[in-house]
């Protein structure tokens, strides 16, 4: 099947159509259809994995004209490479889990809920596979809408504030990116670019000053989504208020959009600016790591704590990306997956106890281990994965990031960031201890039931992945490597040396000026002449 990507992406929409024909009240049928849809989507995504050739090319490409009017041409141009491959799989993998996670928690308006979930899945998959900047933007924004409803309708007490904040926060960033996107396109048209296909833009030699602005606009949009310090404050609110599936998807997939955006778009498109911004972004990433850890430490709400831990984890990912070498980026992409799995699992875990006790305050718990031994084991494993214990997935990613960072110009940043491993242990274990250990003194906790079969079934795939990725990550890495090399080639700004080592060891601060052989039309475009409105 040559259009497997499209099939996979729009399968959830088929599910939505099916759901529309199911009467409102029949929750069982609604849930089943949604579950089957996501599972089928997952199965449909597997041929992508098996058919994937380990090289740097975009694969399963579909490229047909979509919009063509005026100066613009947008194409339905989709495909995957090593960077998006695992994120796509992660998405299809997480979605059935997300559907299952609120199997019983959402009793109200099940139909609408499931529809939101499925639309969200399509939007996320679409964003990951888009090779057309405009198409990407459409999916990118489309994601907001179902998530907005999920938080707003099925969220917690403070959901209104959270959801509006989430929406507008992310929108402001995206809209500025839109302006940059348009600007970029018009820059491209001067060198003969005819549509929004991503590949065209790589060879654009944009002058550094322009790059700075464009990068800033792209980076803002992605940084909000990541979220990076200091534009992270929507995250704790959104996470806290979202229903479990919402939090899971938000953490596991949507945050990845931000980092994905950086590596897919911002960095290869604007290499000079990438280098120029590296210290700033690395600084923010490192601040994020430490800051979020400190803040997480004093949280009283489990979910908020996990949310802040996300900020810290994503800080690592950003650091890895901007190490701009293979280890760092590999680590970052792995950490993307890892964070999706571990933090997704953590949110599920929080969801389990919230469903039972309807509170998320740490102080309301204590000693749950006694009452819920299976839960305790699972929670423990996930916690350890989150603190990047070797043998679990978190370690591989974090370690590669730090190695990469250390080898790059970000050595000092990396050293500071490494201390994040200590803080992570502090806040996660402290939380774990307060929730699971101690006396089981709260009478409400004494009647808690351990996980049921459904809940265990949700967690098992995640636990398996935690260990698979921790012990044998190489197959995952291998599939990414060629694409990562390509990205690095795109972000490299000095003339390509013959050295095999793909590492710009020391910050190429002196190479701010574009090399001489880039004599190709680099035009300082400040005031592009407006198109003449045709008279008569």
């Amino acid at each position: 099947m040559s259009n497997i990507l499209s099939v996979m992406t729009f399968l959830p929409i088929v599910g939505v159509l099916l759901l529309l024909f199911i009467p409102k009240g029949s929750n069982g049928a609604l849930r089943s259809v949604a579950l089957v849809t996501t599972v089928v989507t997952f199965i449909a995504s597997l041929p992508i994995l098996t058919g994937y050739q380990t090289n740097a090319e975009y694969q399963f490409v579909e490229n047909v004209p979509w919009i063509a009017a005026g100066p613009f041409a947008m194409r339905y141009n989709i495909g995957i490479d090593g960077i998006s491959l695992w994120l796509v799989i992660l998405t299809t993998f997480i979605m059935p889990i997300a559907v299952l996670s609120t199997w019983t928690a959402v009793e109200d308006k099940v139909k609408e809920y499931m529809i939101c979930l499925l639309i969200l899945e399509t939007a996320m998959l679409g964003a990951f596979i888009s090779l057309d900047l405009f198409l990407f933007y459409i999916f990118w924004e489309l994601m907001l809408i179902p998530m907005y409803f999920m938080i707003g309708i099925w969220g917690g007490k403070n959901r209104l504030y959270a959801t509006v904040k989430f929406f507008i926060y992310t929108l402001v960033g995206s809209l500025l990116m839109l302006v940059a996107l348009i600007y970029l396109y018009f820059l491209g048209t001067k060198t003969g670019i005819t549509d929004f296909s991503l590949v065209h833009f790589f060879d654009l030699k944009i002058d550094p000053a322009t790059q700075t602005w464009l990068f800033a606009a792209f980076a803002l949009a992605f940084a909000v989504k990541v979220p990076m310090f200091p534009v992270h404050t929507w995250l704790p609110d959104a996470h806290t208020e979202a229903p479990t599936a919402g939090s899971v998807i938000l953490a596991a997939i949507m945050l990845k959009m931000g980092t994905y955006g950086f590596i897919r778009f911002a960095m290869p498109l604007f290499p000079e600016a990438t280098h120029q911004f590296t210290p700033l972004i690395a600084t923010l990433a490192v601040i994020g790591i430490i800051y979020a850890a400190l803040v997480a430490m004093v949280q009283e709400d489990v979910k908020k704590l996990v949310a802040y831990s996300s900020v810290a984890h994503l800080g690592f990912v950003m650091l890895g990306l901007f190490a701009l070498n293979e280890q760092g980026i590999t680590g970052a992409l792995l950490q993307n997956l890892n964070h999706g799995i571990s933090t997704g699992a953590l949110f599920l875990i929080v969801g389990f106890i919230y469903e039972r006790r309807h509170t998320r305050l740490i102080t309301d718990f204590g000693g749950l281990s006694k009452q819920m031994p299976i839960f305790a084991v699972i929670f423990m494993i996930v916690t350890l994965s989150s603190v990047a214990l070797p043998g679990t997935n978190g370690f591989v990613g974090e370690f590669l990031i730090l190695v990469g960072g250390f080898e790059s110009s970000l050595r000092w940043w990396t050293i500071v960031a490494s201390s994040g491993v200590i803080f992570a242990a502090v806040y996660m274990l402290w939380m774990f201890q307060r929730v699971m250990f101690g006396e089981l003194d709260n009478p409400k906790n004494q009647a808690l039931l351990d996980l049921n079969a459904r809940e265990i079934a949700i967690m098992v795939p995640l636990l398996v992945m935690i260990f698979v990725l921790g012990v044998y990550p190489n197959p995952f890495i291998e599939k990414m490597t060629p694409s990562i090399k390509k990205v690095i080639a795109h972000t490299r700004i000095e003339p390509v040396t013959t050295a095999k080592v793909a590492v710009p060891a020391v910050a190429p601060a002196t190479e701010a000026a574009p090399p001489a052989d880039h004599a190709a039309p680099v035009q300082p475009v400040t005031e592009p002449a407006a198109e003449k409105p045709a008279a008569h």
Partner: protein
Amino acid sequence: MDINVAQLFQTINLNVIMPEVILSVLGMALLLVNVFVPSKSKGYLAWLSLIGIIGAGFVAVTGWGTTVSSFNDSVVQDSFSIFFKMIFLLAAGLAVLISDQYMSREDCNHGELYPIILFTTVGMMLMAAATDLMTIFLGLELMSISLYVLAGFNRDSIKSNEAGMKYFLLGAFSTGFLLYGMALIYGVTGTTRIAKIAGLVTQVGGAGNTMLLIGMFLTLTGFLFKIAAAPFHMWTPDVYEGAPTPMTAFMSAGPKAAGFAAMLRLLLVVFPAMKAEWSDLLWILAVLTMTVGNFTALRQDNIKRMLAYSSIAHAGYCLVGFASGTATGMSGILFYMLSYTFMNIGAFAVIVLIGKKGEPNGTVMDYAGLGHKRPLLALAMTVFMFSLAGMPPTAGFIGKFYLFSGAVQAGYIWLAIIGVLNSAASVYYYLRVIVFMYFKPGEEEFDWFNVSAPVALALVVSAAGSLIPGIIPSLLLQFAQQAVKLI
């Protein structure tokens, strides 16, 4: 003067104004028919009008791609005018569809409504097709005077009276400026034919000719009033709030488009040489209009008033495209006005339904719980709100994309940035409606209304029109491009 009658009639090509003729004749016929139609059955008039509108539409479309002037070059049939005529007809059609239910409920189901709508439409179409200052003026006045009536149509409602009166006084006032401007232009160039003026602008010194400059700006003022650009926007909220809701819907879409049509033709055909001047002005006005509209809308509880301010903001977005002076921006205006017609009238259609007799102007709070009691209706409203907010994949997004692209293309980056930031701010109040519909528990059961067939049709058409061009906009965009190229 020797008048050769035969020659005169040779210059008259009725085909050029055939849609207008159809509607005018139909309107007059309906005025007569109305006398014999019992007040309960005025709905038939609506269907008749609709048939006429659709017929006019078909007739109009046939001219696509050609440019035919007639009436001594005072009216033209070109793709540009046809595109706009489609917008007007669409607005009129949708307005007609949603009128009967509202008017019956509010006990002002006078049959004259439909003819007046048709006359308004004729006026607007004339504006878009006019190539003579006189025809522009005539079209404008035909439209305006009809609109005054429509705004004050509900004679028993104080608010409707007030709306009509305000609109009338201010509209007439602005007409004064417009005419004075036209007089000055005429004085400088000695003609009222647009084509001729265009040829003379540079000869008389272009922007260096003060009188011409003043004339241009005064004329512009008249149009800016119609499209509700700040600081000529003040009438908008009051009139929109007071007018009967279907008429608000109509006048938020149609006349605004008509104003843009005339303005586009005037500035692009007549004054391209003075682009530096009007472009700067529109830059500032765009910022002012967007900002005033959006910021004020943020604080509105009355949903109609909110949409009124939002319509000001939308005029601002279009001005962004206009200020750019690029084909992209211009075609964006065309596309945007079309999609705006869908989404805004759609939103008003929902308001028509939710309103209760005697208190047709609900607040946003009145929508609490709608999402759960009337899911389809709420879904439609959601589509309209997201489209107004410019979220993908709606037509509103594509429209804004083209408008802002125009600005970027012209190098007006900051204008585009201010535009998108405004757009982000606007999201708040559109979302607020959604917040109430879905996220707030409502006590109301929303059982006091049925969605009548015409309104349902209008809703479906509007929703489709707000969504489909968002996903496959290519064709419409190409039409808009062609339309802009041909003027």
